[in-house]
């Protein structure tokens, strides 16, 4: 019944939209031959390396494959923790 109400109110993503979104991800990974699992490992290693030099929020790090046209890029978003000490001085 919730499913029906969601559909009625247009809250649920249409199945074609879901198919497209899922395919977008799958195709990017297929094309560059990198598994989502590999990407997770890469993320952990990146966090480790960067944390050695800069204080970052490891839980807010995101790393993903993106495609624009025929080009693929690895996009990492790494939020840096505010440097509190400097501000208090």
């Amino acid at each position, binding site marked *: 019944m919730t499913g029906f109400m969601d559909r009625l109110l247009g809250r649920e993503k249409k199945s*074609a939209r879901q198919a497209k979104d899922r*395919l977008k991800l*799958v195709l990017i990974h297929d094309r560059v031959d990198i598994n989502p699992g590999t990407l997770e490992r890469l993320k952990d290693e990146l966090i480790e390396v960067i944390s050695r030099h800069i204080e970052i929020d490891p839980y807010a790090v995101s790393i993903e494959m993106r495609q624009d046209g*025929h080009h693929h890029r690895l996009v990492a978003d790494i939020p840096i923790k505010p440097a509190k000490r400097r501000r208090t001085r």
Partner: protein
Amino acid sequence: MTAKVVTITSGKGGVGKTTATANIAAALADEGHKVVCIDSDIGLRNLDVVLGLENRIVYDLVDVIEGRCRMRQAMIRDKRLPELFLIPAAQTRDKTAVSPSDMVHLCNELRSYMDWILIDSPAGIERGFRNAIAPADVILVVTNPEVSAVRDADRIIGLIEAEEKGPARLVINRIKPAMVHREDMLSPEDVIELLAVELIGVIPEDEQVILSTNRGLPIALDGKSKAGMAFRNIARRLCGEEVPFLNLNDQGGFFGRLTRMIRSGGN
């Protein structure tokens, strides 16, 4: 004359490669071109039954390649279209009986006296696929608007590019306009965007395709069928004609009109 070699492939099986090959071939022959289609799916031949020529097979592709017959002896002339020929696949052999260079030589011989050579590729990305694309000038990739077929099409398109045989052109088969309309099926636009390839045809789902296959008469020769029309348009586009894509969004009937009214009112 020098024929153009067009290979029809897909990655995933069962998306309509053989139907597409038979119908594009029939449409080209109906326009007066000399066409030969080659079934390269060795061990799993089907183009013969789709064209209704299964009872006339004496020699096959492997017989020609291994020199047991002359080319002309293996070319079966169509029942209705005198300019359409079929070279059937061998049924009792396997893919290793043919090599990519065998296919190139075979097509080079045929090029001199045909206008078009259409090769029906087996599914998959192995030897049979490589045989089928080796002599190709143009490659058509057939897909359906669903996740597994689109994913496999993407793999195939990548392999075609890697072999420097691209760019492939896409045939989207079995579109259900009503489902696309209610956003429960990937639209042709969605599929093109995902695969980043050029479209050459969109074939609507049509029960008549099954009937025509039952009878062994390609639907492209049926003037009333929308799928048949879509196949004929692909043939014309192959010839370099600019043909607009069929409007499949024509939602006939009361409910179609009603949904449209509601939608336009809502916007």
